[in-house]
């Protein structure tokens, strides 16, 4: 459950940071570094799908593709909802 919790937190961070990068609120280097950190944490915790959408967001930011960031964020958001549902189920089963 702790790992699911951390994965939701990292996916949420990726959404928030990518959105703010698209809005010019945070610098690109910071966005890259944070999303990369999220991807590494997700890979380490064995969250393959979450790591994949995070890697796609990282690639979008790395290409400076502001237009494509909305789709990347939507994929991250969808993955986060999946993990949140799993987390809720785990909490209720306890």
């Amino acid at each position, binding site marked *: 459950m702790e790992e699911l*919790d*951390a994965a*939701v*937190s*990292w996916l*949420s*961070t990726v*959404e*928030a*940071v990518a959105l*703010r990068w698209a*809005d010019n*609120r*945070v*610098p690109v*280097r*910071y966005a890259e*570094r*944070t999303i990369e*950190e999220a991807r590494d*944490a997700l890979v380490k915790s064995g969250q393959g799908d979450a790591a994949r959408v995070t890697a796609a967001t990282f690639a979008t930011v790395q290409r400076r593709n502001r237009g494509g960031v909305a789709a990347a964020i939507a994929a991250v958001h969808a993955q986060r909802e999946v993990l*949140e549902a799993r987390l809720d189920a785990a909490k209720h089963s306890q």
Partner: protein
Amino acid sequence: MKKGLQLALGILTAIGGFFDIGNLVTAAQAGATFRFQLLWPLLLGTIIVIFLVEMSGRFAAMSGKTIPEAVREHFGVRFWAVPFVVLVLLHLLTLAAEIGGIAFAMQLVTGIAFQAWVLPIGILIWLFLWRATFSAIEYSTASLGLVTLCFVVAAVMLHPPRADVLSGMLPSLPTDDAAKYWLYAVSIVGALIAPYLFYFYSSGAVEDEWDRTYVGVNRAVAVMGMSFGAVITAGLIVAAAMVLHPRHIGVESINQVAFVLTDTFPAWGFTLFAVSMAIACLGAALEVALSLAYTVSQTFGWRWGEDLEPAKDARFAMAYTCGVLLASLVMLLGLDPLKLTIYTMALNAMMLPVVSVPFLLLMNDGRIMHDRRNGPISNTAAALIVVLSFVLFVVSIPLVMLGS
């Protein structure tokens, strides 16, 4: 007039000196994970630190001595040996965490990895200590530290629910993740009562040649300065609770906090966060390095004083030089600044009995304090501090293990 100016500058210093990497990390984690529920350890820690800072200033004003000097004189070198070693270790870890904080802020601004900044920052801190006087260090970093008021502005502009904020100031039990809750609670208190704060304060009072006429100024500085400092920390807890908690963002990395001001200040919130962090950590790093040099010099009876030329108190200068060098090397080992900070703050809480009990005994010694020794209120507070510090000591170790 002179005392009025010192009062204003003292409050400014207290505000600037209060907020550091420890407060920043623990406040962000508390707000992000437990919303407003951990405002009460901040309130409790602030009351404790007001009493400790007031006592350390009063002690210096009445005795003309600093705490290490007096403890060594009254209890003997053997008694002081253990607290001294603990204090040196705590100072070094705290200094490393502050250097890590400045380096991380530089990484946020420039994009260059924080490890690359550690040595240049160590050199900058050393140069500052080598060249500047005590007053220059005290007032420049304190004035710049006012930038951290941006957290209070953000907290107000985010319109937090008042009832929830107020209820967070009352102690409550965790609804889930009890180990993390108590670890954060202990770390918040540990970040506030870092020994360097009152050791630095008492040495500063001796450097500024306080006498018994400064007892009132000291009380006002302790109460107002620490309270304002706590408001800044509370501002960050509230901002994190409003921005990070609804998004289920827990703080496992400082990167996860760095955008906390961008909802309130879209264009410059990110830079403001990095600058606040850098200045708060720089001010604290200078204070910790000086506090380390004061503690070492006063323990060994060396000549000390930041206002003296380094050639005139060479061993004092050597103490802060070695401290900055060792702390920089600790950060160069590749430690995570956030993890180092959280464990150092828990260690601060753990070690409170070792450093506070001898000092509190001296505060009741009529031969030193004369008519200004602790009264019933201060002694009640002192008793509570001792009890609380033993509780923190007992619970800290399992909490650090469970919380990690």
